[in-house]
Each structure stands twice: as structure tokens, then as C-alpha cells.
């Protein structure tokens, strides 16, 4: 069920009103059922996977608590890791690896007859696998106590606002909120409603609005350099608005239910270097990778070369997490590469420039613009349909760039073109005021003007061709 649909609005209304009047324990049972209905809406067979993964990690958590023997504890952890990652490997990567192996062997003239399965990718499998793993690893590291309440744990895994596209919540943040009675404050309610409005605006008006133009260029046999540049800028907007919209709506719905989910995006395109970018983009994934992959690999503790190796491995796997295709691997490698380059030249310290100094501000702006180009080339790798397309597009950009070529695709609809500057202005204001709640300090008429503007443009944009959230495929 897509957040940006009428069906979901009906579902949310049906869930929300009974939820408000139920006592805490019943609320949890009710939310769990609602979450399974939400997930089963795609395909009820997917439920068996999430139930299995939940059960394994729940029992491993309890087993870890009951023994202090290192060997046994490691064994339990391995069971959880193998089960969770095994499910992910089979359902997400099996076909990819088999096909890659076939392609590789064919290069040497072999005609392999390997088992090829057509497995449907269960939505959100990457998200809930990482979420359950973080629980088990934290219990193993004795950073949290495991819960004995199975249904509460199941709700932590399947909590519907963030189940299929994050944020990937840590047990230490979400589980206590599941276990304890929740309070809904007026501020939570109003902020939640605003986040939902903002998320729908980003998704429906901008992401869905620009999708047609991006798809057109990436399907063209012979686009111009200007086509590729503009389409890639639009894709940068599309993926940001699509993904951050999901996080905004998820956080908004969670707030309406009395939960607080972590911030997943914090103005990522205001970054001046890759390190800062990954502190602002998909924060729940980047911190997960840092805590459960980069640091266990050694982090930056064993010299420069090992640090570079760890960065590249982390980002390669992070790229592969985004999808079972080589362009995601390449994108991950690219991200790892630019992190290494940045680390090599600049080190870990990022010089902050005060925005009050005019010159400093322009230098900062220049850095933002330059780094945005680097990010956008990464999006080209991410969005491309094949390696050939990456090579072709890169060659066109490098050797055939001209501003006089014109564009050969239809621009996004008026409403998207109107929505983009509004979003940019809001983000600039948020950046300068250093708080996502900037609008709450405004006088009520001005705040209402913002709500009314977003609502009006959202209504106008509802006719944009709807599409699934990009990260449903992750």
C-alpha cells in the first residue's frame, strides 16, 4: 500500500480512530495486526518471511540473555545473522549472482546451465532485515536488554509507518516506545500532520512530477549532453523528494500515533563533501553501516590504508543494499572512492564557514554547487539502465557538451516546476534557521499561508502520474 494513495488514507483512518481510544496493550496488538494487513496488501505470502525473521531474532535475543558463555553467544548470533542475511540473499540476490555468474562464464565460452529462479522481491526486506539484525547485535553486545514480549517485538519489526522504506530504527529507540504507554501531545500531532503534508507534497508534486522527464531521457537512444545533465539534476530531485517524502510521511504518521522515529534526511544537498553528505542522507542506513560494518571492520583505527579499505567495503555493500544490480555496486564504489579522496586531501575535519561572513558564504555556496555535481554523477550511475548507458552518457558529458544543443524531452508539468522553487526556499530557510521546526516560530497567519500553499499545490499535483516509491524496490 503506497502512502500517496486514497487506499492508504482510508486504511490510516480505519487504524487511527480505534487506536486513539484503545489502552496501551490493545493498541500494540491492534497496530501489529494493522501492520501485517498493510504489509500483506502487497502479497500475503510475504508475511511468512517477516514472521520467520521476527521469530528467529526474538528467540535468539532471549537465548543470548540466558547464557554468558562466549562460544554459545557467538553461535546464537551466527544463527541470527545466517538466517536474516540468508533470507535476504535468497530473495534479493540469488538471481543476480546466478545471472552474473552465467554472464561471467559465457565470457570464457562456457554455456552454463545454472539454476535460475524467478523470485519476487518482497518489499522492504532490506529494511526490516537490517532492523532485526541491529536488535540482535545490540543484544549480543549487551547494549540493550532483549524483550520477552513477542508481540511487542513483532510490532517493533513490522511497525507499518516505517516497515517498507525506513527509517531503519534501532531497537534502543523504537522498542522502549513500543513497550511503554505513549502520550500524544498537540505539538506531536501538529508536527506529524505537517510532515505528512510536506511528504505528500514532495512525493506527488515533485518526485512524481519530474519522473516522466527523467524516464524519457534515460530511455532515449541518443540524448544530448544537456538532456542528460538536466535529467540527472531532475533525478537528484526525484530521488531525494521520493525517499525523504517516505521518511517524512512515516515520521508524521508515527507522531500521530505517539511514536518518535529518527530523522532520516537533513538537507543533504547542502553538503560540501561526501562525509557530510552521508551524515545528512539516509541517516538511518549510514549510521547502521557505520556501527555494524565500518567500525567492526576496524573503522579508522588501523592506519590510513585499512581505513580506505574499510570505507570502500562499507560503501560497496551499502551500494549493493540498494539493489541487486552492478550499477548499484558501482555507485557504492564511487561513494567509497569519493569518501577516500576526501579523507586523503582534507582529513576528517571539515572547516565550517560562518554564513554571516559574505565571502565565506559565497565560498560555501561554491563548494555546495561543486559537490552537488559530484553527487549528481553518482545519481547517473544509480539511475542508469546498464553499464553501456553509463559509458555512453559519461562520454557524451565529457566530450560532447554544448549548451546550444537544446533539449529533446518534455519538461515536467507546471505544478512540479512551481513546487521545486518552493521546496528549495523552504530548505534554505531551514538551513539558515538551523531547525526543521522553523515555521512554528512564524506568526499564525504566515504559518497557515505555508500550509495552504503546500495543500493547494498538492491538490493541483494529484493528477501527476502516480508511481511507487523508488525505495520499495530496495
Amino acid at each position, binding site marked *: 500500500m503506497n502512502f500517496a494513495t*486514497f487506499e492508504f488514507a482510508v486504511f490510516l483512518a480505519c487504524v487511527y480512530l480505534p*487506536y*486513539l*481510544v*484503545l489502552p*496501551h496493550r490493545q*493498541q500494540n496488538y491492534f497496530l501489529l495486526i494493522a501492520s501485517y494487513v498493510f504489509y500483506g496488501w502487497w502479497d500475503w505470502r510475504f508475511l511468512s518471511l517477516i514472521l520467520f525473521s521476527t521469530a528467529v531474532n526474538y528467540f535468539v535475543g532471549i537465548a543470548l540473555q540466558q547464557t554468558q558463555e562466549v562460544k554459545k553467544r557467538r553461535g546464537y548470533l551466527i544463527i541470527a545473522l545466517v538466517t536474516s542475511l540468508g533470507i535476504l540473499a535468497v530473495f534479493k540476490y540469488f538471481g543476480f549472482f546466478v545471472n552474473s555468474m552465467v554472464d561471467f562464464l559465457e565470457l570464457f565460452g562456457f554455456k552454463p546451465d545454472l539454476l535460475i529462479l524467478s523470485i519476487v522481491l518482497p518489499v522492504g526486506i532490506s529494511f526490516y532485515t537490517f532492523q532485526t539484525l541491529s536488535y540482535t547485535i545490540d543484544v549480543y553486545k549487551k547494549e540493550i536488554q532483549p524483550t520477552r514480549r513477542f508481540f511487542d517485538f513483532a510490532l517493533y519489526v513490522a511497525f507499518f509507518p516505517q516497515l517498507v522504506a525506513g527509517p531503519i530504527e534501532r531497537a534502543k529507540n523504537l522498542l522502549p516506545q513500543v513497550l511503554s*504507554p*505513549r*502520550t*500524544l*501531545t*498537540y*505539538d*506531536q*500531532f*501538529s508536527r506529524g500532520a505537517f510532515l505528512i503534508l510536506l511528504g505528500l507534497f514532495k512525493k506527488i508534486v515533485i518526485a512524481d512530477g519530474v519522473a516522466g522527464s527523467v524516464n524519457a531521457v534515460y530511455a532515449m537512444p541518443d540524448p544530448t549532453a544537456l538532456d542528460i545533465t538536466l535529467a540527472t539534476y531532475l533525478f537528484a530531485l526525484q530521488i531525494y523528494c521520493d525517499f525523504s517524502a517516505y521518511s517524512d510521511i512515516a515520521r508524521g504518521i508515527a507522531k500521530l500515533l*505517539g511514536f518518535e522515529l529518527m530523522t532520516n534526511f537533513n538537507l543533504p544537498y547542502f553538503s560540501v563533501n561526501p562525509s557530510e553528505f552521508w551524515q545528512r542522507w539516509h541517516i538511518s542506513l549510514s549510521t547502521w553501516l557505520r556501527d555494524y560494518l565500518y567500525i567492526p571492520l576496524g573503522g579508522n583505527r588501523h592506519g590510513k590504508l585499512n581505513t580506505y579499505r574499510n570505507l570502500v567495503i562499507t560503501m560497496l555493500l551499502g551500494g549493493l543494499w540498494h539493489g541487486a544490480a552492478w550499477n548499484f555496486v558501482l555507485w557504492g564504489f564511487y561513494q567509497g572512492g569519493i569518501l577516500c579522496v576526501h579523507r586523503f586531501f582534507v582529513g576528517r575535519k571539515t572547516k565550517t564557514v560562518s554564513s554571516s561572513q559574505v565571502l565565506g558564504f559565497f565560498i560555501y555556496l561554491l563548494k555546495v554547487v561543486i559537490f552537488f555535481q559530484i553527487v549528481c554523477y553518482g545519481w547517473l550511475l544509480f539511475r542508469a539502465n546498464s553499464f553501456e548507458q553509463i559509458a555512453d552518457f559519461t562520454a557524451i558529458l565529457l566530450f560532447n557538451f554544448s549548451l546550444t544543443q537544446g533539449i529533446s524531452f518534455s519538461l515536467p*508539468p*507546471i*505544478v512540479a516546476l512551481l513546487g521545486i522553487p518552493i521546496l528549495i526556499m523552504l530548505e534554505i530557510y531551514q538551513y539558515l534557521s538551523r531547525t526543521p521546526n522553523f515555521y*512554528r516560530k512564524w506568526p*499564525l*497567519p504566515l*504559518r*497557515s*499561508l505555508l*500550509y*495552504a*500553499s503546500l*495543500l*493547494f499545490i498538492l*491538490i*493541483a499535483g*494529484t*493528477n501527476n502520474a502516480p508511481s511507487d516509491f523508488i525505495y520499495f524496490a530496495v
Partner: protein
Amino acid sequence: MRQVTSSTLPSKYSPLWTTLSVLSWMVLWLLIFELLLYIAVPPAPATVKPNKIQSFLEYGRSIEGKMHKMIAPTDEFTAPIALAGWLKPSQWHTKPSRPQKAEDLLIAIYGMSFAVHLSKVLAKLDSQITIRLIAAPGVPPNHTYTAYLLDKQQHSAQVVAMSILASDVVSMTTLTNMNKYFEYPMPFTYPKYSRIENRLKALWPKVRNLTDLRRFLNDKTLWEDYILQLRSQDSYYDPFLFNHNITDYVVSIRFVRRTYATRHARFVLETLHGPQGFFEHSEEIQVLPYGSVISKVVF
């Protein structure tokens, strides 16, 4: 769950009061937007091509509202699109009824824009071909077939071509192109066919030409009669999309109506067509010759 309270940002007003104030202000701002848009982008007259913003704001006007705007007492002030597509054989006398030379070939072509392309290509390919073309925008097979029936006595064509676009087959359960093409309704009409004991039976719409339409639009009883017929016979008819009322003057409701029209069109399509093609039991496929072939068309 505890009561809703104000917490982190204490306000001197209660949550309920604040919410009501915000909602009232929002309504006021939305009204101001409406007013500003009306002043800044007034609707274009029917005979003038609207600019992109005017079109964007007008797409969601009701079909009836659009008809009132498009149809003037004379052709001169009527929107050009409203003049197209009427099944009026008396207007077809100007078209060639025999080949230019006795040894040449006359081909009669009926259909929609693809028929126009076809005729242009044929004429280009062979100078010995004379084309008699009767076409209108987005017409379904029932319009094409009726045009052929009405026209067949008026020419000596050895070859007749009827072009059918798969996406227009779904319009065979309509009487006019007004309802299917919500954003650009075309008021011309055509009969709807049903198969009774292996024979096609035509159900003619009450409005048969533009003169009829003008008369009906200005007569409440006649117009309601026509709407009744559309309601019972036209699969794309929907009262929210069709009926002209006060909501036509509100831009945001026009946006909502436009979105609803897209959903409605998808819903109608899904009753006739699935991932495997048209449903074989559907009215369209039952009526069409070679229906079982056409039923495999997927789009």
C-alpha cells in the same frame, strides 16, 4: 492514550483554538489564491486557444460547464473542437466520390487520426490513388462503422479501410466523446451497438448534430433527458465529472475533479481490459467483428 495536550511549545491558546485558527486562516488563504488566480489568469474565450496555464486551470471544469463555454449560438463563436466529428453525410458531398481518372483507385477511409496519417501516406505512395477520408479525433469503432454505413451509397470506392485504435475500443460503450475525453470533451455523438441474435442493433443518442446540442443545452427538459440517456448508456458518464455547479468556479475543486477523472477513466478501463487484453465477455468484444482477435490487444 492520554489526552491531546500542548507541551513543548506552550501556547496561551488551547490546542482546539489553535487548530481552528489555523484551519480558518488556511481557508482564507485558499480563497485568496482562488481570487488571485481568477484575476491573474482569466479563462480564455471559447474561440481563442488558451495558454498553458489557462488550460491547466480549466482541465477540471465539469463537462457540462465546458459545453456551456464551448457552444455558442453560431459556429463563428463556437470552439473549433465542438464542430468536429459530427456524423453529417450532407457535409461529405465535397469529398471525392470517384477516382480522379477512370483507371485510378478510390479508397474510402474512416476512423481517427491514424486514418488521416494512413490517407496521407497512401496518397504520397501512389498518385493513382484517390482518397475519400471521413475522420474525427479519437473516434471509437462504432463512429467509424456508422460513418461507413451512412456514406457507402455516396461513392464508388473499390476499397474501404476502417482504422480502429485499440485504446478507443473501450469507447464503444459510449454515445459521445464528451465523457471519455474529460479534459478536452468533444461533443459529437454516434450510435452504440449491441449484438442481438447475431445482428447489430444501433442505439442512437438523442443529440445527433450540433444544432440539436445547442437546442438541448438551452432547454432544461431536453438536456435532462439527454443526461438520463448518458447516465444509462455511456460507461464513462459520471455525475461528479459531468454536472455543472458552483464547484466549477473553484480552482482547487477543479483540480480534484481532474484527478478524479483520471481515476474514473482507469476504473472504467479496468472493467473492460486487463493484463491479458480485453475481457472476452465484455460488451465491446461481443459486438466487434473479429472480437476474439482484438481481445488479445494489450496496452
